[in-house]
């Protein structure tokens, strides 16, 4: 198994005709993912073609899902229209909306998140690298890659990875792969203050997933999501967890690239989070180079 998406998950791409969306739709097709539909309002009926794969384009998400059986959407639409794109997935009752878009206004996300309450669709992101469930082919080919992560750094295996940051996730994944340890699923939950799925949500899914045997949780300064997850892990998690927190040197009150990475109060600091991680039995990586090793100190693979 894996979490959230499997090798055969059928994916539609909102914004497939834009540069960003098109580029990553092509990379996903090359990785062997099932990109089955595109959605661009007004371009319904056109076809997106790459490597001999023909992807039909629809005007609406509902139509795309109905015609192709897509259950997950990758959202690449520009920030002013992204919340609308998310809510269109909710309306179409998709399983999962993965919002890659960076720079969505907080107010839009506050409203969208409220409107998603009680609905079927789960949101990952926004401002996230997406999800990869590695495949079993060469360089993990044949997996489900949704978003912007490089596919080839992965390897199918037993470690679940959850992180807010893209490149820091790749760093952890690459360390694991180089040491011969594969991943069940890698989830980038995004760097915004309002996001759809938290560290804790993903940890719970990994905890229940039979294929996942160990977990790496990567966090950063700002907010209390990592702390909430750590406390839950201490009480409930059956699997070894390693962690890393970025931002030990970040000054208070400055936004470190991610809109969510701002030290507001005393508990938002890296030092406070690391302390709580340790108290909760999480093996903490001293540096980002140490993430895979921190896990391997408590889990033999």
């Amino acid at each position, binding site marked *: 198994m894996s979490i959230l998406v499997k090798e055969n998950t059928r994916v539609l791409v909102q914004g497939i005709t834009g540069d960003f969306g098109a580029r990553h739709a092509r*990379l996903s097709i090359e990785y062997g993912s099932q990109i089955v539909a595109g959605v661009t309002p007004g371009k319904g009926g056109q076809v997106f073609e790459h490597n001999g794969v023909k992807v039909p384009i629809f005007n609406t998400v509902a139509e795309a899902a109905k015609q192709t059986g897509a259950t997950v959407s990758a959202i690449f639409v520009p*920030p*002013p229209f992204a919340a609308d794109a998310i809510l269109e997935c909710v309306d179409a009752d998709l399983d999962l909306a993965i919002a890659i878009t960076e*720079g*969505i*206004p*907080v*107010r*839009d*996300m*506050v*409203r969208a*998140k*409220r*409107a998603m309450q009680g609905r079927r669709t789960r949101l990952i992101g926004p401002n996230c690298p997406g999800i990869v469930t590695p495949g079993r082919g060469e360089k993990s080919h044949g997996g489900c890659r949704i978003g*912007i*992560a*490089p596919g080839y*750094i992965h390897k199918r295996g037993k470690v679940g990875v959850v*992180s*807010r*940051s*893209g*490149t*820091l*996730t*790749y*760093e952890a994944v*690459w360390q694991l792969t180089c040491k011969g340890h594969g991943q069940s699923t890698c989830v980038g939950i995004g*760097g915004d*203050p*309002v996001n759809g799925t938290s560290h804790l949500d993903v940890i719970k899914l990994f905890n229940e997933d039979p294929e996942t045997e160990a977990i790496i949780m*990567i966090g*950063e*300064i*700002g*907010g*209390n*999501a990592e702390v909430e997850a750590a406390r839950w892990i201490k009480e409930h998690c059956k699997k070894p967890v390693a962690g*890393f927190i*970025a*931002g*030990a*040197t*970040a*000054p208070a*009150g*400055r936004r*470190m*690239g*991610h*809109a*969510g*990475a701002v030290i507001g109060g005393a508990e938002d600091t*890296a030092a406070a989070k690391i302390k709580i991680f340790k108290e909760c039995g999480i093996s903490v990586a*001293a*540096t*980002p*180079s*140490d993430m895979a090793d921190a896990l391997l100190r408590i889990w033999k693979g």
Partner: protein
Amino acid sequence: MNIHEYQAKELFEKYGVATPKGVAVKASAEYSTALGQINTANGIMVKSQIHAGGRGKGTFTNGFKGGVKFSPNKEKAIENATAMLGNTLVTAQTGPEGRKVQTIYFTEAANLGKRPDGRDDEYYLAILLDRATSRPVIVASTEGGVEIEQVAHSTPEKIFKVQVDPAVGLQPFQARQIAFALGLSGDLFKQCVTLVTRLYQLYWDKDCAMVEVNPLLVTKEGQLLALDAKVSFDDNALFRHPDIVALRDLNEEDAKEIEASKYGLSYIALDGNIACLVNGAGLAMSTMDIIQHFGGSPANFLDVGGGATKDQVSAAFKIILGDKNVKGILVNIFGGIMDCNVIATGIVEAVKETGLKLPLVVRLEGNNVQAGKATLAASGLTIVSGDTMADAAQKIVKLVNQK
């Protein structure tokens, strides 16, 4: 994005929130006219306008104490304004370099009401995002005029919070809850309900990151007045608020950070001596951390973004080298999708173009990394290669400390 107090109060006035009458001036020639436009009978507050808190307790580099001064008459107000305008104010929030005061705000001094125990009748009110619930939260306290973090720490029971459901917005009963929590009655109760409702409207309409009033004051005459006003905005929403963008004061921002934003780079200056250039915010933050872990001190945060181009790398080098404290550079790129060789070519060009003499350690990983490393090696430049982040960080720290 932040704005000045006087701009925030102009917004308050537009939303019908009472503030002491005031006039902002940018030149000493305007003092007299400005003071003629307000009622100076109760005295005048002279307030330095900078984007940093702690102004009242700040000190100017010329020795003058206090960035906010009560002045009993016009003559004294002009004297105080003269000591402030054009001079540099250092507060707890500005850092040692301080900020140059380019605007003075004259306001009518209010008649502070007193509580039965003799204290000033001051309250605290703020509206911001509660990250834990992803909803707006209104924070109110009877303890105004002091640092709210202090109140939250020592007397948390004096902090009152109301979560707003974004589906329906602030409800009248919630505004009443706040007015009751502040212990107000009669006409002041009504004023408070109106004020909270209007401030929430401002917060929501203008995509504010935060609206803060500290203190919110009751005057001797029985009026609820926003004595100070701090408003900041969600940068991601500025595209739909040209009126707010017009309030931006570039003098209050770091020139290098502005330059960086033109190239889509996210740059924040710090006070160390090892500059770093990284792709991705999380990796950039942790590159700063690993420099410190191995005994160095990071000079900046710099995220060139997920898909950095040659031009961005070149611009990033120039920005980094604009910081005279920099004694060495660490480049850390995890080229997942982008081609490491393109980045390597960009680095080589930037080094040649800027005539870089400082130690440079480059750690490249990912797509086409071998070609990238070959490009660096063949350049004839002294570029040290790092294999892992730890290796690269140790190398740059050693090189900088040797000098």
